[in-house]
């Protein structure tokens, strides 16, 4: 039973990590139907920014919690600026072009950012300091769940609730939903579509950066390539849950994380990816738009 709980919590951590990245993916897709392949790179940039800021602050002798907060804020702001700029440079000029062109532009952007960090920083793995303090009350069960995991679970839940609230109850959220439904019509009724799309990228990038900081702090190492694999997995999770849906992204991520963890634990980790993708294939056969995806027909 202990083993089951440990695998469950491990899967929950994995799933929450995917979810923090998948939320941004699914949000951008929901609004402009673009698979933003550069999203994983934003996550990686967030981690690198936090590493640099944390390094400086540690030298200045700040305490751990202050470093965590400041590093996260700087990483979030910096990455959001990247997200905003990427949209303006790589996607906005292609908004009227076929969807495939924007997709290729996204792949190009992803490679650009990877190799930019490779050249500007290093190709080696770098140690990432443990920014999340060890909670005293967790000591007796530390071998089962670490404080960084608790922080990741909590952050994922909070981010999901906040984003859902943003979209359901605020004015900009309403404008986002309108843009998602019909961009031209939204423009006609006076919605500033450019602003809405920029906002989407800023929010999406901010969540990815937050994910980057927490996950890097949990795993303890980063390099320029971490965004690619995490990004692909998060994308799969978003599709599994129903791309465009916030709760779907979280659910899909948890299902993916759990299934990988249990498959590794009870069968074999040799084929964990095979199993994860088989699961995706079967889900999509029976529910083509994902677990929580809307099954409305494509707009014509």
């Amino acid at each position, binding site marked *: 039973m202990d083993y089951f709980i440990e*695998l469950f919590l*491990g899967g929950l951590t*994995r799933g929450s990590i995917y979810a923090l990245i998948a939320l941004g993916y699914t949000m951008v897709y929901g609004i402009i139907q673009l698979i933003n392949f550069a999203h994983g790179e934003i996550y990686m940039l967030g981690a690198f920014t936090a590493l640099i800021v944390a390094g400086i602050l540690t030298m200045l002798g700040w305490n751990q919690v202050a470093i965590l907060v400041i590093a996260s804020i700087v990483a979030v702001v910096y990455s959001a600026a990247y997200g905003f700029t990427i949209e303006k440079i790589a996607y906005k000029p292609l908004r009227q072009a076929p969807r495939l062109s924007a997709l290729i532009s996204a792949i190009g952007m992803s490679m650009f950012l990877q190799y930019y960090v490779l050249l500007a920083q290093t190709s080696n793995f770098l140690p990432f300091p443990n920014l999340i303090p060890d909670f005293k009350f967790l000591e007796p069960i530390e071998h089962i769940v670490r404080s960084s995991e608790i922080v990741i679970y909590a952050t994922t839940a909070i981010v999901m609730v906040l984003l859902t609230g943003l979209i359901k109850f605020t004015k900009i959220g309403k404008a986002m939903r309108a843009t998602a439904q019909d961009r031209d019509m939204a423009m006609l009724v006076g919605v500033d579509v450019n602003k809405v799309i920029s906002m989407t990228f800023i929010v999406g990038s901010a969540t990815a950066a937050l994910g980057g900081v927490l996950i890097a702090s949990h*795993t*303890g190492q980063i390099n320029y390539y*971490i965004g690619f694999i995490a990004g692909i997995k998060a994308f799969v999770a978003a599709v599994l849950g129903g791309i465009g849906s916030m709760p779907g992204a979280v659910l899909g991520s948890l299902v993916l994380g759990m299934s990988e963890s249990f498959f590794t634990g009870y069968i074999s*980790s*040799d084929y*964990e990816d095979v199993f994860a993708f088989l699961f995706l294939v079967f889900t999509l056969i029976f529910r083509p738009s994902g677990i929580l995806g809307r099954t409305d027909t494509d707009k014509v």
Partner: protein
Amino acid sequence: MMKNHVRKILALAFTTTFICLTLSGLSLAADTIKLGVAGPHSGDLASYGIPTIKAAELVVKEINAKGGVLGKPVELVVEDDVCKPEVATNTATKLVGESVNVVLGHICSGATKAALGIYKDSKIVVMSPSATNPGLTQSGDYPNFYRTIASDDAQAQLEVDFALNILKVKKIAVLHDKGDYGKGLAEFAKKFLEESEDAEVVLYEGVTPGAVSYAAVVQKIKRSGAEAVIFGGYHPEASKIVMEMRKKKMKTLFISDDGVKDDTFIKVAGVYAEGVYATGPKDVSQNEMTSIANDAHKAAYGEDPGAFFLNAYAASLALLNAIEKSGSTDYDAISMALKKEYVDTPLGSIRFDEKGDATGVGFSMYRVKNGAYYEVK
């Protein structure tokens, strides 16, 4: 045009034959010990083969200056195999035709394997400075083959011996990163453990490189009750697994290979790296012979030696020493001497085991202590 070509080729063929005949005539007359040197001396992989020629030249020069072997001067017969098995058989045939006494080479495992059958039929001892394929010695098919480099499975053997005899663990988990290098090593380690029957392989798994977390695999190691993990792969995965284990308060020993014996591993894993074992090439820079060989190379060619230079230097010394000690160029006598007589080389004082691998050549075990790797004596 066509005719012209044919004429040129014919002319070339005649001259070559003529030169060969004259050369062999000359050497027969001079009565020398002939050391064949085979390997890639042109083409893409020439950089692997040429240092061996240089090593042989240096050794031969020195030995001839001291009066040669069995009172006769040593002569080099150099043949190119461009690292291709189909060429290597021709190379071997040529060297046999030149009636060489022993052969230094070949360089690539594939070419070596192709050539060995021909030498075996002619009863010629062959010693490679670089062919690492385990089967060349272990299959027992080539009793005439020796080498001065450790075979691919030597690291796995060392890891297993260390775990069983020094750490004395009974339950071992074998993990790998699914890559050629890591999985290859893990398969050997598993095989050796199963053959030894002193310990049980409680877990054999591949992990996915780059995955966000290895928590599930680590839980599995914990549940398996393994006292030690043998990991085949590189340092990014190793540091993630070690950190996850230590953060989960597991004291399981971690033993890995020269993909992990890298300072980046210690830098990334930090305090968690303490106590990790990893195999790495033996440090021979302190050997007196090493500096003699390197200095001789610098003096003669004005540059630092290339790949496998020291291994080739050691092999040349071992071959010629065996002829000298056995007092003849007879195949059985040379084989006996190689296995019995120790010879001082840059790789240390070596002889060869029953299968033809040099003893004491290869890898050492290192352990992380205070943020650096130290050799475990």
